[in-house]
């Protein structure tokens, strides 16, 4: 009955229009920032959020949709970073020529991995997870060994010219990450609303049965893996610029895979919006704690929050908030509004407090929540009983 209670899925045309509106609005932010003289860090904050949304959403296309748990996000990200670092940073390629190759290089690595692990039937999900983790280690060693790539000396990105039409460094980063982020989320949405998506969901639930019903599981898993790797790598390619001085230790570490998992699980892996919501929340918390100088405390807080939310809201925060969308909106806007009046802190802090207040509301268990709203229980019961009685 939970499904029938949620609002009907909007038509694809409306959703696409929504993506268009979001794109136009977000694209105007750098102009507005310049016009109204916002502090520059807002743009950095936003494009870093775009980075995490892209990483989490692309991870979710593989792991959330197909159920194959991947630690490989660091590998796709790393391949992308090093592709632009080598081509643009070391060999003077134009940035926009190197970027597509960053995505494609990650895609090729992903497909090679898939050919091995998905062809061997005997490999279970655990082995897949371990293999994806191993890929990042292998790639890190390759980068460290070969001077062409890194050779242990790192690679500078500072001399890479940014195309003029993209503007200064910050607006340029903003615009590039925005396009990639929206392309990723749009892809996640389109897959979610397609045969491919439903094929992947059925693989997640029971791969053998899915295959028996005619789902081409190998091809679908490869497609999901390739899509994941491509967008992870593409965003990595842009992110090389933000890192500036690329080293193996900074790129191939556990941070990216761990964060995308936290973000997607918190937001919910069963819907394309889940990772978007999770990424925004966790990145905001982490950003504020870091800026306030509580870097160590940050991980404790995020870890604790994740435990509480996963136990209390198993389907992920996004679906819970959508179910209670009126209350969510009210709490969020209310908290934000009050803070606007009484508080002098930055917008990001206000956003964080409003988001945390909304999360607290999401924590109220469904049993209490529905009991609180028993206005018309009688009609609901009749409606539920009717089909049975008619059938009998």
């Amino acid at each position: 009955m939970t499904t029938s209670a949620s609002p009907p899925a909007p038509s694809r045309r409306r959703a696409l229009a929504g993506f268009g509106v979001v794109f136009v609005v977000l694209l105007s932010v750098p102009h507005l920032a310049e016009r109204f003289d916002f502090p520059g860090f807002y743009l950095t904050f936003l494009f870093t959020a775009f980075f995490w949304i892209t990483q989490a959403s692309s991870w979710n296309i593989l792991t959330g949709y197909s159920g194959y748990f991947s630690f490989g996000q660091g590998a796709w990200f790393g391949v992308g970073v090093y592709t632009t670092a080598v081509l643009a940073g070391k060999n003077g390629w134009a940035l926009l020529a190197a970027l597509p190759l960053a995505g494609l290089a990650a895609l090729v690595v992903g497909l090679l991995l898939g050919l091995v692990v998905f062809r061997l039937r005997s490999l279970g999900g655990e082995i897949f997870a371990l293999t994806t983790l191993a890929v990042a280690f292998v790639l890190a060693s390759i980068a460290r060994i070969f001077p062409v790539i890194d050779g242990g000396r790192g690679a500078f990105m500072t001399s890479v010219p940014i195309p003029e039409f993209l503007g200064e460094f910050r607006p340029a980063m903003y615009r590039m990450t925005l396009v990639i982020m929206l392309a990723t989320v749009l892809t996640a949405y389109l897959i979610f609303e397609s045969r491919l998506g439903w094929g992947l969901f059925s693989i997640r639930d029971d791969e053998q049965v899915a295959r028996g019903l005619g789902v081409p599981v190998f091809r679908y898993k490869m497609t999901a893996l390739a899509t994941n790797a491509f967008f992870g790598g593409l965003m990595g390619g842009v992110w090389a610029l933000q890192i500036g001085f690329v080293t193996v230790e900074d790129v191939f570490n556990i941070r990216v895979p761990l964060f995308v998992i936290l973000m997607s699980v918190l937001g919910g892996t069963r819907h394309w919006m889940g990772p978007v919501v999770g990424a925004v929340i966790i990145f905001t918390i982490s950003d504020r704690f870091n800026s306030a100088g509580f870097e160590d405390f940050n991980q404790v807080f995020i870890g604790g929050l994740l435990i509480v939310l996963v136990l209390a809201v198993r389907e992920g925060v996004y679906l819970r908030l959508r179910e209670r969308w009126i209350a969510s909106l009210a709490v969020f806007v209310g908290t934000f509004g009050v803070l606007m009046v009484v508080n002098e802190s930055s917008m990001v802090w206000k956003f964080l407090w409003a988001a945390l207040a909304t999360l607290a509301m999401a924590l109220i268990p469904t049993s209490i929540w529905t009991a609180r709203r028993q206005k018309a229980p009688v009609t609901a019961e009749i409606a539920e009983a009717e089909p049975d009685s008619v059938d009998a």
Partner: protein
Amino acid sequence: MLLQCHDVTKAFGGIQALAGIQLDVEEGRILGLVGPNGSGKSTLINVLSGFYAADGGRVDFAGTDILGLESHEIAAHGIARTYQIPRPFGSMTARENVAVSYMFGQHKHSLASARRAADEWLDFTGLGHVADHEVDQLNLQQLKFLELARALATEPSLLLLDEVLAGLNPSEIESSVDMIRRIHQRGITIVIVEHVLRVVMSLSERIVVLDQGKVIAAGDPQTVMNDEAVMTAYLGGKRV
């Protein structure tokens, strides 16, 4: 013949589960597959649906050798199956379970058309009123019927039923038998594996008896059940 098995073999370690199966399934018929426990019935279903790779032999289905094909390719040729213990997609509603099956199966269909088709199959199997239910809210019979709806939604020409009646009470068995007849009336060929002999006898036009991985008898229900080899296999010889 819709389906012809020639000398199909399958061993698990030292156990010969299928020791050279010869089997013909006529188009438009209901064939009952019976035999004592461990005689190879379920293994045969698993081989025919591509879940197990056979060790040898051929299976001609509507003119193609399907042995060695992946199970999704076999589904695309028009063979569907159900599971003895229902295996619905746990994160989906009843309607979504059937819709996925309709999108894939023998023909490709879009997501948009799948919802309506799913409702038709749910109505046909009497599950229309639980279409929006999560599968963990369904009882055993509803889950078994959902298996049927999901198999039918693949638009099969051959339906393999693996003990659909197991675990059901007498009145549920009766409605299930009725359902199987109605499926058959739609022109779908059925192979039914069943323990409840009385039911198989009444449903099937032809019965094949397996024992120790071999076909020991085949023919119309009456003749087969009076066959000496069959009596021996079921009753353990003439020691009584």
